[in-house]
């Protein structure tokens, strides 16, 4: 597609439930990133996929968070047993990857509210 697509755009869930957030990157972009943005805050790195390499999970805040990327394309971020502090906008970005003069293209995000 022309841009990075994320779904759903909004998600309200009850505390303790599991949620899945989806990201469809730009075709041909080998790198995919998940960031989290809390209200009025900056961007917190969560996880990074590059081609067929093992993902960089160093930003995941707890073992309740996991992500996968199937076929080098679509990615799903899963949050198990959601907590109120997980409420945030979850942003996905993709890029050509590597060391080029290449910025990220972000999706519009999924706004997660845990009640």
């Amino acid at each position: 597609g022309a841009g990075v697509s994320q779904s759903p755009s909004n998600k309200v869930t009850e505390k303790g439930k599991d949620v899945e957030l989806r990201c469809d990157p730009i075709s041909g972009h080998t790198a995919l990133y998940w960031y989290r943005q809390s209200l009025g805050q900056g961007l917190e790195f969560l996880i990074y996929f590059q081609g067929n390499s093992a993902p960089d999970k160093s930003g995941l805040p707890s073992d309740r968070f996991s992500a996968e990327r199937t076929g080098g394309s679509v990615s799903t971020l899963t949050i198990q047993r959601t907590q109120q502090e997980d409420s945030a906008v979850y942003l996905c970005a993709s890029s050509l990857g590597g060391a080029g003069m290449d910025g990220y293209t972000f999706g519009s995000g999924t706004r997660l509210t845990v009640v």
Partner: protein
Amino acid sequence: QQQVKQSPQSLIVQKGGISIINCAYENTAFDYFPWYQQFPGKGPALLIAIRPDVSEKKEGRFTISFNKSAKQFSLHIMDSQPGDSATYFCAARPNTGGFKTIFGAGTRLFVKA
């Protein structure tokens, strides 16, 4: 944790004025310094970027100034317009360790008409 420190947190500028946002980075190997612009309800969008071997880059009303020795870089928005009102993030990408970009905390810019 490698950091990029951004200031000010918020900025109010009169229409036609110059908006200046500053960032500083710590002692590490970054090779790419992008700026992103974010409107409410949208994801950040790449605005302009610079490599550390260049001291200045200009695109329209937007200019990045880069001081490698001081480990500082800044965004100047000339002739600021109400449509420039947004949150701006500076960022830096290391040239090792997977190239994941580190973002500043953001600056909320409001341009008064």
